[in-house]
């Protein structure tokens, strides 16, 4: 059993994200990057499957600045191997990533591909269904638990209103992971250093070109102001009093 987990770095939204001078993209130089939260869960799910079923796990990322760090961290977390995929295009959208990854994953002979359910910076759809459709494999997104039974995966898919389903999928398949059954584990920095000193990253070159998107971004901007909240100013004690006064006025708490 060979599992590939696909990793992407996305802007850390705790920091400010600024729009570039053209007004159509973020200022990529000023952004702090981090592993996409859902990929972190996909990685945890992959390592849990390795531990429970002895599957072999390869972490895969498109080559870019900072990506090596991400791949070393995946090795430190427990994957067997990490490879970066080089492409002719600088595009990182899901259709481009799918074009780059499909051939590489097929050549690797993987049985199961795990991606994050979505990335906050990508307009052009979700990688899991695009990749699966290109490969002719089944796919399921918004998955929160995966187990392996022979040549099948059993997954939990989540819907709104607290509903869930258990689906069974024949392998090979692609799953868009929302959450691992337990929080992603923490790796001590000493372990990461050790991996960086000893592990070798592999690489592969993408054969297929990125497809045209058929869609152009004309503007990227903060959402329109609209109504917006009335901001309560002052020290915490003063703000607390204003909030309690508001609640009492409206009969939302006892006077």
């Amino acid at each position, binding site marked *: 059993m060979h599992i590939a987990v696909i990793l992407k770095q996305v802007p850390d939204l705790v920091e400010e994200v600024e729009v570039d001078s053209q007004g159509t993209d973020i200022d990529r130089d000023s952004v702090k990057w981090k592993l996409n939260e859902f990929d972190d869960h996909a990685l945890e799910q992959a390592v849990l499957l390795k531990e429970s079923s002895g599957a072999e796990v390869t972490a895969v990322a498109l080559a870019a600045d900072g990506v090596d760090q991400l791949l070393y961290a995946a090795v430190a977390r427990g994957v067997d191997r990490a490879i970066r995929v080089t492409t002719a295009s600088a595009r990182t959208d899901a259709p481009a990533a*799918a074009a780059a990854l499909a051939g590489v994953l097929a050549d690797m002979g993987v049985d199961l591909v795990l991606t994050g359910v979505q990335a906050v910076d990508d307009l052009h759809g979700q990688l899991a269904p695009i990749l699966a459709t290109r490969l002719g494999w089944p796919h399921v997104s918004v998955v929160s638990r995966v187990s392996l039974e022979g040549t099948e995966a059993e997954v939990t898919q989540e819907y709104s209103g607290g509903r869930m389903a258990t689906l069974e999928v024949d392998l090979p398949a692609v799953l868009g992971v*929302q959450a691992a059954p337990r929080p992603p584990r923490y790796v001590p920095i000493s372990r990461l250093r050790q991996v960086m000193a000893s592990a070798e990253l592999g690489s592969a070159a993408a054969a297929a070109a990125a497809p045209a998107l058929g869609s152009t971004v004309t503007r990227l901007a903060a959402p329109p102001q609209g109504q917006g909240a009335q901001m309560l100013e002052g020290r915490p004690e003063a703000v607390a009093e204003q909030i309690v006064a508001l609640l009492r006025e409206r009969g939302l708490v006892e006077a």
Partner: protein
Amino acid sequence: MAGVLVYVESDGERVAPISFELLAAARELAQSLGGDVEALVAAADTGPLVGELGAADTILEVTSPALAGYLPEAQQLVLVEAIRARKPAVVLVGYTSAGLDLAAGAATATGLPVVAYCTGLRAEGSDVVADSQLYGGKLVATTTTSTPAVFSVVAGSFAEANGHAGGRGERIVTAPPAGLAQLRSRVLGTTGAGGGAVDITKAERVVSVGRGIGGADNIELAEELATAMGAELGASRPVVDSGWLPKERQVGKSGMTVKPKLYLAVGISGAPEHLEGMHDAGLVIAINTDGDAPIFKVADYGTTCDLFDLLPAITALLKPAG
């Protein structure tokens, strides 16, 4: 190539609210782009659903035992075949769990562009201009896309009330795709909401905690406030995924939908997937140290005070003296 095709979601018995929003959006687009509003409904029994789709000019019905329960593979086969047969200018899919499977999958299979996270759509000539929420709702991207194309639409973006009537409601029964006989995936079972110890959907007051609370040990601060206010505790997804609060308290797209009179959002950024679960709340008050957090766009009142200072201060004022 004309018209707007809406992918209808249901639980087999009722059409999902998002589908009425899509039908409303489809009518607006069809008025500019021309053509019909078509609703695609695929289920084991479309009988109970068809009557709710009066906003569509044509209702494409695909019925098969293989369509019992939501199975991404089966639904994608049906959607792809409908796109090939009807050649719509625009395909609308909800940005729901189903949308996350189908919009991009069907677009890829048919070679169409796809634009995700749309909150606004308008026709310009034969193009569609869309607004999409990116970066957790912090930025909005405006795109121009040539048709035919697929769009996934965020719940709460169009008026559901406009999606119930006004179409011709002609029924077209279509044979299920041959591929349904060779599916490589199956639905083993579904579980409904409820069964948990609490039901936050009925609460009149909700104190909802986000990642800003920082750790399981700090939940206590919010718990004390909730007790003092007579509120239930809610949570954002990361708080649940981190194991700090149980799943039944999660508010949002993949959690519960709440409509309390008061929603106090504590350390929650206000990502679109969270807002989906609380946009019908009465008074919304947000506490977040980041003045640019999207939650302030939907809150009535807000403060950038640190929650660790503010929560105890509010609790102290609400607790009877002594």
